[in-house]
């Protein structure tokens, strides 16, 4: 609510009790989340818990049946996904959704397009503004590719990249929209242990470099526990608990959600994506 105490600054992303039902199935119920600037927040839960549905609600793919979403005080409800991206909400996808036939550079350049001011007439006439902006887009895109270590592949088709590079390219593309909040949907999926370690460093460094607020879904407990400052646990669309990694790990409800019965928590921490 808006009458939050002064000690708790206004959150960048404020999600108030959003719910969605598909027919009779309540996929997400009363999901609430407040992300202060710079937070690295995890969203975990067993398969089918509704994590990706939450992402789709936030980015506007689905319309919540009730609740409110606002980004820096601006309500996002009723906005199309593209407008939310323009407002500063960027995402990556669980099943990689690059533009496969476009080059690596062009994938990033597409996402730069919402910064541009030139009109369609400017495009067709190749006005001086359009030319300047196209050059700036190239410069910016290559900068981002360099940060994510993909610059040497800028001219390759996105489809020809190895899996880990494709994931990183998705992050580069999301960064190109100049987001305030970045939603990462299983960034570590399919990566080997070495890549996962690099990923953790990389996510932290982009958070600091671009002063981002990050919400990430992840099944890999090593990544989640080592990276996130706070974690929300979902099960069957309901928030079971929210807290620091240590609190979450100790919570018996979390263990129950993952394993069905109370056991030692080492099984959760070490067992990976269950």
């Amino acid at each position, binding site marked *: 609510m808006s009458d939050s105490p002064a000690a708790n600054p206004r959150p960048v992303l404020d999600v108030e009790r959003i719910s969605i039902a598909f027919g009779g199935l309540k996929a997400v119920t009363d999901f609430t989340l407040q992300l202060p600037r710079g937070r690295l927040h995890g969203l975990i839960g067993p398969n089918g818990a509704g994590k990706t549905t939450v992402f789709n609600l936030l*980015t506007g*793919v689905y319309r919540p049946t009730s609740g409110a979403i606002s980004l820096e005080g*601006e309500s996002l409800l009723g906005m*199309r*996904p*593209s*407008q939310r*991206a*323009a*407002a*500063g909400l*960027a*995402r990556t*996808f669980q099943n990689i*959704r*690059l*533009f*496969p*036939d*476009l080059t690596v550079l*062009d994938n990033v*350049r*597409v*996402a*730069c*397009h*919402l*910064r*541009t*001011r030139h009109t*369609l007439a400017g*495009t*067709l*006439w*190749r*006005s*001086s*503004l*359009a*030319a*300047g*902006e*196209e*050059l*700036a*887009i190239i*410069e*910016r895109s290559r900068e981002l590719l360099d940060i994510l270590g993909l610059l*040497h*592949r800028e*001219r*390759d*088709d996105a489809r*020809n990249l190895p899996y880990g590079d494709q994931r990183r390219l998705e992050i580069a*593309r*999301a960064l*190109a*929209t*100049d987001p305030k909040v970045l939603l990462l949907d299983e960034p570590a999926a399919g990566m080997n242990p070495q890549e996962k370690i690099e990923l953790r460093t990389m996510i932290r460094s982009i958070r600091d470099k671009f002063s981002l607020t990050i919400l990430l879904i992840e099944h890999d407990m090593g990544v989640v526990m080592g990276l996130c400052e706070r974690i929300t646990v979902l099960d069957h669309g309901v928030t079971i608990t929210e807290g620091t990694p240590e609190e979450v790990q100790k919570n018996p409800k979390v263990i129950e959600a993952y394993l069905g019965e109370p056991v030692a928590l080492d099984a959760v921490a070490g067992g990976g994506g269950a």
Partner: protein
Amino acid sequence: MAQHRGHDAFHARANALRPPFALSLLRSAWPLFACLALAIVLQLVIRPMMPVFAAKMLLDIGTSIILAVSLTMVNGFTGQFSIGHAAFMAVGAYVGATIVYYGSFRLFGNANMHGGLLSGMIDSRNPLPLFSWADLLFLCSLLAGGLAAAACGYVVGLPSLRLKGDYLAIVTLGFGEIVRVLIQSQTTEVLSNPQTIAATPMYMWPKYSGGALGFSGLPFYSSLFWVWVFAGLTLLVAARLKYSSTGRAFLAIREDEVAAEAMGVPTTKYKVRAFVIAAFFAGIAGVLFAHTVGVQLNPGELGFLKSFDILIMVVLGGLGSISGAALAATILTILPELLRQPPTIWPWGLIAGVVLAAALTPFSEKRWKPAVTIAVILIAWEVMRWTARTLGVDLAGYRMVIYAIALVLMMILRPEGLLGIREIWELRPVRAGGRGKGARR
């Protein structure tokens, strides 16, 4: 607005990178002048030296290029499947024809061709002025035809492009039929008495456009100049679109609509944009088609079969490739005519084949492939001629069958089209001993 949040650094950098005004103006304008100059040279210098049928062929090729390249912007760039391109052509053709025909009566008292040197394919009147007011009338009708088609494109596209999948195909097909039936159901009368026309109010003109019998008596304004100016313009617009933020947004929609939307591309708006631009050029092609020598504007000719002809060019050229569409438009316009009386191609064909094979070899991963392909085409051609001669068959009757077989073979052997999504100028030679793309690492 949210649109301009926090992009100040980017905008400052963009301003710093802006080319100086004069240079930018030069870069923007030179292709227009080049295109204008080429079209004038084509009309005034090259056409008189060409046989009449070759000039007519060149005219048809230009029109086909306008149609194929404009459809590429929809089907190729944004990946939407429109199969009603000929309907926009029909809208343009009838709007343009009405303006030219009845406008001529009002201005000159008859519907003869009154254009100067740049209009028309036959130098009948003497002496011809370089420019006449009738040329301006034709230019206005071209633009009016284009704008009318674009307006229709907006009306059809706005509701149907919100939907995904095959809906657009069905809607465009339906729109095509509506346009055709609407024109066919009009009165078959075309006014030709200056007094009657003078007495008929302007808004009644479209009614007297020949209906099912076709709009007869149209002056033949279309010339290599007009066709190739607009073919050049279409190519320029397509190319500038493709290599711009807007064009990349189009391609992103084709590649993955959900991801494009998530990256800030307002997909519906951009799909409508592409659709309207494409409809504009289809409308212009329609006006040019209506005023071409030997064409009798008839709604039956602009039905869905014509739409499919255009679609085949786009698919054959490679979805998303401008140069591919233009190339396919050229080949598919020449081929049916060539098949009427298949000429022997041994002497020239051999030379051209060898040159072409040599030119293509660096781009092919399998070095023998271009040479073998060309050899097979040359042999098939000669076998076809020899068989026809031995059996005493007139190939002209079977040309559409042969044409169809060629298309089927093409789709089996090269389903991605001649060039795929790439352009001719983007092809990179494959280095010996490795794949060009993979070898970079």
